[in-house]
């Protein structure tokens, strides 16, 4: 038997932790610039990071077998809280997303980002893959219930994120390509229906995305300004703290959703390549952990977590660079904001748990 290393005893995955630390450091650098060197934000970021790392560490200690045992309850509770939000939620920026418990406020939709892959992984790991058609439809119900509730809040970005991490698990579990093609057809033909169900402001965002100049005072402005910031960055960028777009207040939401534009302006294509490499490194490590996992539950769950993480990156970058509508999703570990960071780190905790409890269990 191989000797158990120090990190393994702590249930920490070294390469993953390395990626996270490098990313967080880049996050500090960009946030410092994006916030106009506001030390306040840096302190708050540190508190968020400390809390999120602790959560990751705690989650990593939980053996996947234990995690699978609470999956169903976790899902049901999260779903219940989403329903509560519908009735008692606090409104912020036009959407009902928050639930207040005493002095704390949290978004149940964040819990669902993990609860959904967990429950699907549990459900599909009971039998050997590929899943039967009946199971696939059951999984669809698991996915659709929370997605509708979140979309109703309305929070399209998060709804999409939850849906993708659910579908990712279904995909990994080996759903047949024919069925997948069927879903694609249904999804495309239901697009007009969804369009009609959308709120005015959501429809407007899509329209604005297609033609940003149409609304120069509203969300079109964000996209126009953000493209100017990225494009003027060029190969090597304008240099740290030198982004004119960012510092002349042309760029909205620049320390949160649009921080990628600040990054692009100041660090250029070179910086983008480095940033994407680090993201890909973390994703690759996540997928490797999934492949190495010995139990189907861990395998499926890890891919769900990795897929969720990737959707954050893809949707945020796509939105900021003008390829996707503005849906308000942060760039993981770079954007300012505590809630999503907690969820992402908890996800990494799950990946670490899947990996580090593996050999101990096989013994």
């Amino acid at each position, binding site marked *: 038997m191989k000797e158990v290393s120090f990190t393994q005893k702590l249930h920490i995955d070294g390469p993953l932790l390395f990626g996270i630390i490098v990313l967080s450091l880049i996050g500090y650098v960009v946030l410092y610039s994006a916030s106009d060197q506001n030390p306040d934000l840096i302190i708050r970021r540190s508190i968020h990071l400390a809390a999120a790392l602790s959560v990751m560490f705690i989650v990593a200690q939980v053996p996947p077998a234990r995690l699978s045992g609470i999956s169903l309850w976790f899902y049901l509770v999260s779903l219940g809280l989403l329903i509560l939000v519908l009735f008692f939620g606090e409104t912020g920026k036009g959407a009902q997303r928050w639930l207040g418990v005493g002095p704390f406020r949290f978004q149940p939709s964040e819990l669902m980002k993990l609860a959904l892959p967990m429950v699907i992984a549990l459900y599909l790991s009971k039998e050997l*893959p590929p899943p039967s058609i009946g199971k696939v439809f059951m999984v669809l119900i698991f996915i659709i219930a929370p997605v509708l509730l979140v979309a109703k809040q309305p929070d399209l970005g998060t709804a999409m994120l939850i849906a993708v991490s659910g579908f990712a698990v279904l995909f990994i579990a080996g759903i047949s390509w024919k069925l997948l093609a069927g879903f694609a057809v249904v999804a495309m033909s239901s697009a007009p229906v969804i369009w009609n169900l959308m709120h005015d402001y959501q429809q407007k965002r899509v329209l604005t995305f297609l033609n940003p100049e149409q609304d120069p005072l509203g969300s079109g402005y964000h996209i126009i300004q953000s493209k100017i910031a990225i*494009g003027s960055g060029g190969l090597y960028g304008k240099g740290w703290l030198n982004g004119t777009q960012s510092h002349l207040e042309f760029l909205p939401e620049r320390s949160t959703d649009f921080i990628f534009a600040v990054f692009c302006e100041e660090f250029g294509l070179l910086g983008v390549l480095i940033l994407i490499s680090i993201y890909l490194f973390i994703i690759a490590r996540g997928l490797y952990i999934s492949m190495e996992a010995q139990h189907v539950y861990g395998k499926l769950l890890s891919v769900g977590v990795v897929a969720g993480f990737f959707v954050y990156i*893809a949707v945020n970058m796509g939105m900021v660079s003008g390829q996707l509508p503005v849906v308000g999703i942060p760039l993981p570990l770079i954007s300012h904001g505590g809630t999503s960071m907690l969820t992402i780190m908890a996800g990494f905790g799950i990946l670490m748990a899947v990996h580090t409890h593996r050999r101990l269990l096989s013994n």
Partner: protein
Amino acid sequence: MAKQPSKKVLDRNQNLVQTRIYWTAALILVITGAILLQVINLQVIRHDHFTTLSKNNHIKILPVVPSRGLIFSSDGVLLADNRPSFTLEIVPERVADVDSVIEQLGRIIAITPDDIQRFRDLKRRARRFEGVPLRLNLNDEEVALISVNRHQLPGIDVVASLNRYYPLADSLSHTVGYVGLIDEEEFENLNKSNYSGTSYVGKSGIEKAYEDLLHGYVGYQQVEVNAQGRKIREIYREPPGPSKDLYLTIDASLQILAVQALSGRRGSIVIMDTNTGAVLVSASSPGYNPNLFVDGIDRNIYADLLRSKDTPLLNRTLQGKYPPGSTIKPMLALGGLSRHVREPGSETWCPGWYSLRGSTHRYRDWKKEGHGHVDMVHAISQSCDVYFYVLARDMKIDLIHETLTDFGLGKRTGIDIGGEADGLIPSRQWKREALGQPWYPGETLIAGIGQGATLVTPIQLAVATAVIANRGRLVRPYLLSEVRDSATGQQVIRASTHEARRVIAANPGDWDVIIHSMREVMHGERGTARSSGAGTEYQFAGKTGTAQVITIAQDEEYDEDEIPEEFRDHALFIAFAPVEAPEIALAVIVENGGGGSRTAAPLARELLDHYFNRQKRLETG
């Protein structure tokens, strides 16, 4: 585990999952590639283009707020004006510590806790680097004080803007309504681009109903800014889509006269054009001063308005519900005629009271000694209750309900500013559903004199009166007569008068009887309102009404002087004129005013005199 799958099956499944992970990785790479391509497109291929844009990007886009459309009466009196006013604004992003700046300002000019609260509310939803109002309506001295201290106060601006002002104040408050600061809920529902830079929105009345026309479309200007974001010059300006000026059907001089006639008493007067439905007067008394609401009303004043037993905030014309009393007698009589329940000439004996068969309860006539033998014309002109008890008994509640509903009573008239109350015309079905009880015959008698559960609004009464004047055709009341472009003064829309609908089919002879008996009310020897009809140069048709507020017991006498004011009868009066070619219909209600003939009819006479004298002056002069 019950069944252990063979190693081969296990491997095949393991491989399936493994393959799918590779697929996932491939998909992730493809999507990442697509994002990267776009970044390369922006940063390498179109780099020069964006660099140029970025260098020129000392340009900001600011909203250009359209100035709110004005509101005029039909006789050209300005009802809602825009007045220049100065606002003190703070740009929170340019201020190190907002609280200390507010404190500093508080030493220079007066800043109330309400100002600070409103500032905090507005600040939460303000765009970045947008001025947030702290003090509104600065006077000249305050503007001067701020200007002198300006160098010590970065991030502070005094902004000139236009503020809503209602010159007529209390006289037309309910109809014109008022604007106020946009609240949280309105903010979520408004088009945010179109309202960027707008602080006020219509809250009630015309201001709310025609918000879209009054507001117009926001324009924008591209301005060059310096590194601190201060405007240096304007580069391009897309002017705002001009707002619209509204011309109402309201006749301001008549309206003011009506409000004066009510002289602060609780009540309402409606005058409408019988041919078009145009509302010339919509007086609800007492009124309130809408100017108090524009910048957020003081909490204590608002509490007083809410608590006042005169309920000044209630638009009595549309929302006040009153028993119509005897004013519905002509309408019921017409229902009896057209359905052949009564002949005009057939007489009823009135001894001063009436009892249902098998009951000892006496339904009293207002005239204790009775009217003797009365036919329909006399029953209406002298307002004989016994005649109508018997008619109601014969018509039954179903036909009463149908007739009154046909006249438009007990349902919303559809006037263009909305906010109407329904009122109620009782029926068997209503009583079963609302109270779970069957209909009793005695209630039919009470309904026959417009008492009991029957409730109507003043606007409904005016509409029903116009139906009589129009011999069965109903017109929908409206307030907006004309829309003009505020920039060019060009007429954009002329309110189309809705086609009058025939709601009641009756013989011309039947209408002649009803209209003749209403003429007799005013001009007949024994008409209940003959004192108000005496000596007119025009002929008019009317009907008085007195609605009980409390029930008088069988053995009690109603003595006005002994009853507290709020329990005295409501005085009502309806009329139209001239009889031969009706132009206007009117409804007057004075709450707890006593008798309709004594209190309400003289007010109507005063207004009709004014209307026709002015018309005559215009014709001769």
